[in-house]
């Protein structure tokens, strides 16, 4: 279990992390979302033991990270947002080097490296030089590298940044596999939808503080009290609108090209009743669905103007 207690990190006058508290349970995939400069990387670096906080504590299974950084290194796998690779080093030698830095005996290395390269789908590149790999491959290799000592907690700082859509999907596949293995993963991104389907819990950070916390559904609910319902009809739209105007709980009606969108503030029973009422009035409905809350909009709502101030 990872516990962050009232974490503060100041760079001179600038406060990067401002009293952040979090608890991440074992096996959870925690999505850390926020605009650039919100304090994601700083927090992750503190957890990884690369930075020491100005005040506050990070506890892993009750052990303080800042007090015993060496002890906890083998429990944490860290992948930074920007990283380099060495020239003139082959993929398996690269993995072998990092296996060496964790004192893994020579005899065990081959099996571990083969397994990890298989996991990130780089087995066919084993004898290639790391500096010739594409960005997506380097990213996956770095992920494999951070797993070389079989850590319990994986900290991934924007693992999908700078990747093309295909490489993103591939990265996501690998992360899903890790999820099934049961590792605790902390993953950051400035793109919320990217994390939505992967994470069990999401924390939105803005200006060094947690702005929202919970599962994706909870966050959505927290922020959108009103549901948007899309209704399509085969018949006359005017007729539908007149019927809708008579119904309760409807906040607003928007007429779109071939559909009607309504803002509905009732619960599920009332929503079912609404549909029943419309159908009873002989309106040929062909589609009645809740509009997927746009995560991007929510994200913008929470982190209003954060970017321009901090960057």
């Amino acid at each position, binding site marked *: 279990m990872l516990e962050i207690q009232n974490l503060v990190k100041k760079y001179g006058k600038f406060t990067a992390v401002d009293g952040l508290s979090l608890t991440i349970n074992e096996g959870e995939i925690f999505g850390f979302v926020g605009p650039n400069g919100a304090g994601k990387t700083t927090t992750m670096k503190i957890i990884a033991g690369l930075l020491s906080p100005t005040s506050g504590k990070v506890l892993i299974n009750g052990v303080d990270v800042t007090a015993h950084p060496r002890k906890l290194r083998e429990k*944490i796998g860290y992948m930074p947002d920007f990283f380099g690779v060495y020239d003139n080093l082959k993929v398996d030698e690269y993995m072998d080097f*990092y296996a060496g830095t964790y004192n893994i005996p020579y005899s065990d290395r081959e099996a571990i490296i083969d397994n990890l390269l298989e996991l990130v789908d780089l087995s066919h590149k084993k004898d290639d030089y790391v500096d010739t790999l594409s960005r997506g491959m380097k990213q996956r290799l770095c992920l494999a590298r951070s797993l070389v000592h079989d850590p319990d907690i994986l900290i991934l700082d924007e693992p999908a940044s700078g990747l093309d859509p295909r490489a993103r999907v591939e990265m996501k596949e690998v992360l899903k596999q890790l999820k099934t293995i049961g590792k605790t993963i902390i993953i950051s991104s400035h793109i919320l939808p990217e994390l939505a389907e992967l994470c069990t819990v999401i924390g939105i950070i803005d200006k060094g503080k947690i702005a929202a916390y919970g599962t994706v559904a909870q966050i959505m609910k927290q922020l959108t009290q009103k549901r948007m319902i899309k209704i399509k009809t085969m018949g006359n739209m005017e007729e539908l609108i007149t019927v809708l105007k008579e119904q309760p709980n409807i906040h607003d009606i928007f007429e779109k090209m071939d559909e009607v969108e309504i803002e509905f503030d009732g619960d599920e029973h009332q929503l079912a009743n609404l549909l029943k009422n419309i159908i009873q009035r002989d309106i040929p409905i062909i589609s009645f669905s809740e509009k997927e809350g746009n995560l991007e909009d929510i994200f913008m709502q929470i982190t209003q103007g954060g970017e321009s101030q901090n960057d």
Partner: protein
Amino acid sequence: MINPVLRRELKTKLRSWKAPTLLSVYLVILASFGGLIMAINELDVYTRGFDPRGALSIYALLAGCQLGLIILLVPALTSGTISGERERQTLDLLLVTKLSPFSIIIGKLMASISQIILLILASIPIFSIIFVFGGVS
């Protein structure tokens, strides 16, 4: 187990074009300096040809040249090793591992020292030419 930093450094250093270039340039400078002092020795009008009495001082001059070159090379080879990791953005990856900062430095230092030793070993043939002429034992 060998220090992993040392292992990696040796592998990558010798694979890059820099290592053979450094070796060649080093040997060319040393050999031409050796050739020059030998030529000066032979200019002596009274002896004509190689004067074995001067061999010892040729050897000393050559050794001095070697020392000078190494004094110039050591800081060039060592000073940038840690900051190079930072520039390449690999330092953080190294710091989160179980390696202690001390063993990182030792690994880097040993890698540079072994490169210098390689240069010294490669210069042995130049020094042995003097033995061919005699005068030094």
